[in-house]
């Protein structure tokens, strides 16, 4: 049988923890990894008589994200209760948003392999409270920890616009970069700050007819690898199942799968979407939210240039490689520090090299970001100018960078104090060149007359001059003088 032609169709439901200090409806502090049931109060324990009060920061973080995802922000939104019984949900309803989410109809641009971008449409984004955690390690019993219950959770739903595991991975990474840029989430996958639920199926073409396979929803993925692999696995599984059974998408035959990371396969959880009846209705304990133009404007003012736009600008305006630009825009601190330095008039490529090769390494060692190394954009710009002008060598520039980070100070003073200023005085260098040429007649001969050995010989002679200068002769000037003398 000939291989079937097919298209992969994936939509995503994403839950993002917001980086507020306190929970969504009570004053308990958010904390990860603390002793169970120590970040709880009567409100988030769902005790009788308690009432929720909305966290303003959570709402503003959500709106900011909605704006970054090019969504329309609703001028009126409200809170609804979603009812289902589960031990990690103390009130047995979740406060969420049903028919009036705060934002809708946006898109996110993801990088594609050819260096371009693709728009994935966002259907809606709404705010809700997270549940606690059920832990199944007690034999015949389960344990419930409600520290997480009430954490503000942004739910983002995309249209089924992704057509490969790579695109889904790219969206996940791009979203992580965006929320980190905005400062609305730490987006630490290992801490469960971001959870992904892809809906996957295939459109298979056979004999000119298109068949759609049943949709699989893979629950609760919390690593980029798991996202990509589970989708790849589902593609193969669905293709196989279609060949075997010919089963196609019918109303409601969506199945729920989990991802078994040990076996690297999806595992069926529920055949048919159980007859959930969430009985949504407006929460009478909370009042609606009106977002007027003034408030929206205030939040808009906090919006920054998005990482993918910055990345494109860096390649276009500064001629950086796409790779370098992506490294610089991986986090907002680096990107803005780079931006600020270049604005001082420094050469972008030189700044990029200093930051990516030395700055990020240092920051990483110190567990901080490049803007926190104690170096001002002004001083970094000065250093870049010195390196470009040939006042210091590339190696010396690295040493000066390290010294600036260790003890602050301006690069010229450091260079002078450490004797790292390159000699650019032509007369002084010419003497050195003459001496080397006189001492290495064989190499001079090769350079002048043997095309096969000329390049190597010139290199050797250059090296000798630099060595004689103890590394301080400006290579550009050495090279100029050397060429003059060898061709004369």
């Amino acid at each position, binding site marked *: 049988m000939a291989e079937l032609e097919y298209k992969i169709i994936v939509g995503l439901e994403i839950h993002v923890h917001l980086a507020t200090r306190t929970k969504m409806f009570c004053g308990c502090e958010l904390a990860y990894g603390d002793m169970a049931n120590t970040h709880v109060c009567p409100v988030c324990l769902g005790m*009788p008589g308690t*009432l*929720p*009060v909305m966290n303003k920061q959570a709402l503003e973080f959500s709106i900011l994200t909605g704006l970054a995802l090019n969504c329309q922000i609703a001028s009126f939104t409200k809170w609804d209760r979603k*009812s289902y*019984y589960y031990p990690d949900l103390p009130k047995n309803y979740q406060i969420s948003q049903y028919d009036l989410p705060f934002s809708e109809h946006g898109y996110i641009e993801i990088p594609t392999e050819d260096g371009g971008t693709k728009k994935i449409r966002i259907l809606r984004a709404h705010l809700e409270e997270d549940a606690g955690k059920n832990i199944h390690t007690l034999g015949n019993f389960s344990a419930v920890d409600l520290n997480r219950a009430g954490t503000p959770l942004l739910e983002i739903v995309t249209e089924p616009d992704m057509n490969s595991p790579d695109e889904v991975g790219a969206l996940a990474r791009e979203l992580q970069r965006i929320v980190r840029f905005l400062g609305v989430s730490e987006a630490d996958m290992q801490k469960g700050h971001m959870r992904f639920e892809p809906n996957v199926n295939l459109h298979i073409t056979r004999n000119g007819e298109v068949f759609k396979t049943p949709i699989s929803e893979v629950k609760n993925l919390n690593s980029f690898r798991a996202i990509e692999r589970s989708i790849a696995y589902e593609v193969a599984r669905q293709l196989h199942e279609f060949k075997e059974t010919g089963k196609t998408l019918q109303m409601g035959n969506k199945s729920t799968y989990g991802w078994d990371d040990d076996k690297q396969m999806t595992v069926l959880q529920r055949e048919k979407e159980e007859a959930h009846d969430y009985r949504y*209705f407006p929460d009478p304990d909370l009042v609606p939210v009106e977002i007027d133009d003034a408030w929206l404007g205030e939040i808009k003012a906090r919006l920054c240039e998005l990482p993918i736009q910055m990345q494109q600008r860096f390649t276009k305006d500064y001629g950086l490689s796409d790779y370098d630009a992506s490294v610089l825009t991986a986090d907002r601190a680096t990107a803005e520090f780079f931006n600020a330095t270049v604005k001082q008039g420094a050469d972008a490529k030189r700044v990029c090299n200093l930051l990516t090769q030395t700055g990020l390494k240092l920051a990483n060692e110190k567990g901080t970001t490049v803007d926190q190394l104690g170096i001002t954009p002004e001083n970094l710009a000065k250093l870049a100018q010195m390196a470009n002008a040939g006042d210091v060598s590339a190696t010396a520039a690295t040493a000066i960078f390290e010294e600036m980070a260790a003890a602050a100070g301006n690069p010229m003073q450091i260079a002078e104090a450490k004797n790292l200023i390159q000699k650019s005085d032509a007369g002084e260098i010419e003497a050195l060149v003459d001496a080397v040429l006189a001492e290495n007649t064989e190499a001079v001969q090769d350079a002048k007359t043997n095309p096969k050995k000329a390049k190597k010989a010139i290199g050797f002679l250059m090296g000798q001059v630099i060595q004689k200068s103890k590394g301080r002769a400006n290579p550009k000037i050495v090279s100029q003088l050397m060429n003059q003398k060898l061709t004369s």
Partner: protein
Amino acid sequence: MDTVKQLRDKIAVGQTKSTDAVKAVFDHIEKHESTIGAYISLYKEQALEQAGKIDEKIAAGRPVGPLAGVPIAIKDNMCTTFGATTCGSKILENFHAPYNAHIVEKLNAANAIIIGKCNLDEFAMGSSTENSGLKKTVNPWDTDRVPGGSSGGSAAAVAARLCCGALGSDTGGSIRQPASFCGVVGLKPTYGRVSRYGLVAYGSSLDQIGPLTQDVTDTALLLNTIAGHDQRDSTSVPETMAPVPDYLEQLETPVKGLKIATVPHLNKGADASVQKALQDALEVYKSLGAEIIEIDMPHFDYAISAYYVIATAEASSNLARFDGVHYGYRSQNANDYIEVYSKSRDEAFGQEVKRRIMLGTYALSSGYYDAYYLKALKVRNLIRSDFTKAFEQADCLMMPVSPTTAFKIGEKTDDPLQMYLADIYTIAVNLAGVPGISIPCGFDEKNLPIGLQIISAPFSEDKLLRIARMHEKQTDWHTKKPNI
């Protein structure tokens, strides 16, 4: 027994000691509580200790709060860090709240002494207190009869002078109707006037805490204490929007040019004795120069339907948390976690609570939401506009509180719909969120008290109380006491 105001005035000047007042009330309780059954829990030792401290303070000339040393009771659906907060339910029989309700903090700050927590229909669902899962309360005027409900314990306690004054909660008449049945004053404030924080919710968009007292003055005094904004309740109204006046200050000043609206077609549904008492009350106001106008409330008849959808829908969700997982009763017969829910709830909830949870769940379930819940919300809007129009024409509305006086225990328990229909006069007030008061206005041929309901515009409690006080000054119904 003195009223709250009388007692606090005596205590404040050292004429009476709080300790003596507390002892006296507990002596009275020891004599009569076994008959009346008003309380779920009593706190004699704690009360005496607090009274002692108040007496010391006063003796030392130190300042005290406006309710200093006065024995007050609260309905047992308000959370306290002392004792249990049961809501009259087996499911919370042993629940000890780790926090105080807003009104408990307010009472404490006013130096009132909370002597006990009163019986109620389980989770405030009912009009007779017969639905309590924990005990029976009778009407002090006739112990074969119900005290009304759901704040039946609070009303009976005030009527039998087992406390000076009490707090209840009113979702569809639960303060006004028992006040009427027991011959005391009961006020449901405007929705948003008193914080619901710490009041165990029944119907969140309808619930409101209010006083049950011996007279209108005491209601004003207690409202002074409990009214006001609380940032822990998002539905509590900011004082910038509706300032809290001193309700006592102008209480004795009659409302000039008072215009009263009545709804004649509604009154016809009440017993003859109730209609007569209403007419007598209107005559009192006429003699004071008030003008009576007759109006129509075209959507009033739909109030019961709308109420029993909205209240039970909210209740079905509010009561979902009672599941035997984090607190409260857990069935010993549960084999898996789902049975922890379904068996605990089945074993511990009473019939009326189950019925309302079922009704509310049905109204919200897929396929029925639009026809019942959404429809009810729209009708609620129409009912509110009826009130808005009424208050454009008149200062207040007057009507009965209940079509009958207190009925016999067990008389209506088999027919829940008949019980619901008796809420006709009180329910619309909650749907509209407006304030309403019940004041004693006569007795029927069986010597059972009758209440007059006065309703006014949102946040006009000061005027409402002044209107009520005008009647009280001309009559002595509020001074009558049951023979116990």
